[in-house]
């Protein structure tokens, strides 16, 4: 009865200014009431969870649209003013959702499960942090020698200052203009510690590469195009496990991101959206998310990371600073002076 139907799977290969979804999948019966779910999360990663959700809620058909974070933000702002839009949004670019909520684009919802969330994963009962994913350093195990593996930002810095030619042009990170998540990580780094300026300088020294999208970066590390990648979402690495890609959680501090879930004010099917939210927060949903790697266990034995080094990115109005025009302009200018013009725009 429950069937999974992938209607279309369009990968955005050409990074044109995106105004549309990158991929669409439909879960659930044809006859059920549709619910438009927009997410920056890969359909493959979140698919099993949604599949279980529609199996339990046969009256809901989830139309899953996968978006790039910046495009999703722009589209949601337009939707908010136009009075239309998705029924639920799940984005890793949390600061953009905070901005949407701050612009009164969200509908409030309370349930015992949302109220159980800690304060830094909940804002105004309109925005909820669903997942728990680390920003990590990954490296190619075959090509990076054991003593070169950076266990903290300081070690990465030292590695880049050593002027070792094999790392020239082969250290990657998100392009902060192309990826909302990359920008959020870089911004959080800049607030968190003074190492950020030195890191940029180091990136500049080894002529590091700024590129788009988690998949491309992990693919690149796996294929040997890049040796080390900085600030990659650990969740994607664990799902797309490669034998030759290994993960390091920086010991000085590790950023933890909680993908934010929001129900737009104009949602047509708010009931389904709140049920999906409660499902994602329930122990059952949480177990599925953990299987997909979207929720990291707090297990020092496994991660070797002391709790004091965990830095959750809080979901609150402070993230609005990241979106300030002047601040963004300055920040990107500083970034660009290190990485040069956007690479993915060049032919």
């Amino acid at each position, binding site marked *: 009865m429950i069937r999974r139907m992938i209607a279309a799977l369009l990968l955005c290969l050409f990074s044109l200014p995106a105004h549309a979804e990158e991929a669409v999948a439909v879960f659930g019966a044809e006859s059920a009431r549709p619910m438009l779910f927009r997410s920056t999360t890969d359909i493959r990663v979140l698919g099993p969870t949604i599949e279980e959700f529609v199996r339990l809620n046969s009256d809901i058909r989830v139309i899953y649209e996968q978006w790039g974070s910046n495009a999703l933000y722009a589209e949601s702002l337009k939707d908010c003013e136009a009075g239309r839009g998705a029924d639920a949004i799940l984005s890793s670019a949390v600061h953009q959702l905070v901005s949407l*909520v*701050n*612009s*009164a684009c969200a509908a409030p919802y309370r349930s015992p499960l949302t109220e159980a969330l800690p*304060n830094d994963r909940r*804002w*105004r*009962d309109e925005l909820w942090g669903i997942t728990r994913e680390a920003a990590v350093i990954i490296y190619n195990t075959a090509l990076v020698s054991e003593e070169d593996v950076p266990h903290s930002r300081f070690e990465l810095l030292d590695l880049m200052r050593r002027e070792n030619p094999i790392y020239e042009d082969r250290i990657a990170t998100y392009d902060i203009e192309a990826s909302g998540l990359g920008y959020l990580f870089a911004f959080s780094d800049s*607030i968190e510690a003074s190492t950020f300026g030195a890191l940029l300088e180091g990136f500049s020294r080894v002529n590091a590469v700024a590129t788009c999208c988690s998949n491309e970066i992990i693919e690149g590390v796996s294929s040997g195009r890049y040796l080390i990648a900085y600030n990659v979402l650990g969740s994607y690495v664990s799902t797309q496990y490669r034998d030759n890609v290994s993960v390091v959680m920086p010991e000085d501090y590790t950023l933890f991101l909680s993908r934010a879930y929001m129900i737009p004010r104009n949602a047509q099917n708010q009931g389904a959206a709140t049920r999906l939210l409660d499902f994602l927060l329930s122990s059952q949903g949480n177990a599925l998310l953990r299987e997909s790697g979207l929720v990291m266990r707090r297990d020092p034995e496994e991660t070797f990371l002391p709790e004091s080094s965990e830095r959750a990115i809080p979901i*609150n*109005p*402070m993230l*609005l*600073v990241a979106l*300030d*025009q*002047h*601040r963004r*302009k*300055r920040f990107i200018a500083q970034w660009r002076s290190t990485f040069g013009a956007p690479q993915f725009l060049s032919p």
Partner: protein
Amino acid sequence: MNEPLISTARQRSLSSRVVTGVLSLLLIGGIIVAIASFAYGRQAARQAYDRLLLGAANDIAESIAVIGGEPLTDLPVSAFQLLALAPDDRVAYAVRGSRGQLLTGQDHVRLPKSSTTGGPVFYDAPMQDEAARFVTVYRRFAERDFSGTVSVTVGQTLAARNVMALGLTRDALIASLVAGLALMVLATLVIRNAMAPLNKIADELLDRDPYDLTPMDRNVPAEVSVMIDAMNRFMLRLDRQVSSMRHLISDTAHQLRTPVAAIRAQSELIVEATDEDVRNQMVTRLTRRSRSLGELLDQMLSRALVIHRSDSAPPLPVDLRDIALNVVETKDHELLSPETEVELRIGPDEVIVLADEISLVEAAKNMFNNALRHGQSPVVIGVSQHGGSAEIWVEDAGSGPPADILDRIGQRFERSAASSGRSAGLGLSIVRSVASAFAGELTMGRGEDGFRVTLTLPAQTGEPQ
């Protein structure tokens, strides 16, 4: 059985009236406290959060620097940390140049209507259809490549303010509710305590024997003691009247028994008598006896009258000269002893006392008749005033009764008088009753020209009421 029910119902209504009064007072007080504490709470919340807004705005203004001829904001996280102290409020900010053009922030944030470029301006404005509070601060730049004023506007919705205001109001209300309850308990205790004497009196009255006319305990609060005094006075009067009535009856029985027995015995003797002379003699004696019995009756009735009136008739201003005149003008002396010379000695000024006229006339008549009967001619009746005391007196030329009779005279039981069929003692006892009824005094002794009986009463000086 209905009366006690009515009285308890009235008691309840009295205390319920007081309770209602206290409750409505508390209610009004509570409403005033609620309004005041809400106003206070709102003001306190407004001041507290306005400072946060101002702090954030100043923080942002401080971060503006002129770079390459343009004012650039390095939006500080600390400003938003300040604003995040109101955790659930949406925020908006805008930095505008000297012409009002948006430099950074949200374009929907408006500048205040009053455009003073001095100190911070606070104002209320909607933020996406929600009420919000804004502040605008200005920073002036006078650089080589940029000169002008940059405005920083920061706004925040009102959720935290309202929560704080309500919290303060609620705390104040809880405090005043507790105080109100304490007051209510205290008020109940006080009311019960205040009403206790009334209940005690009511119980005492209910428990009292209807024939018990002894005064009630005066150990009560001042307000109630007036009532108790009035009641005691009333009961005293009732007691006096009842006892005088009893005395009258016993006196009458006592005094009449002997003369009536004598008259009966004499009349029986007359019936049995055969000798005409003896019979006539006996008839004469019988006549005398019956006349003196009549006099005795008259006096007993007048004494009863005096006692009754002195208790029931309200005292009025009376001119003692009128009394003396009245006594002389009734011309009793012409009947009693026509040979006696009578003189009236009164002055031109009126001598006013507060008393009952009829009682006074009776008293004066008795004094006068006593003198006629026992004294020697001439008999003088006079009125005089010495300072605060007014006197009406009767004087005869005799030396008065012997000292041992004088001692006993005026007592209620005058056995000798009664048995002899005369009524001298009774007459003086009437005078004495009148004297005591109107706070006066009866004195007997040597006067200017013989034996004088004086009734002294407090004179009513000044304006009569």
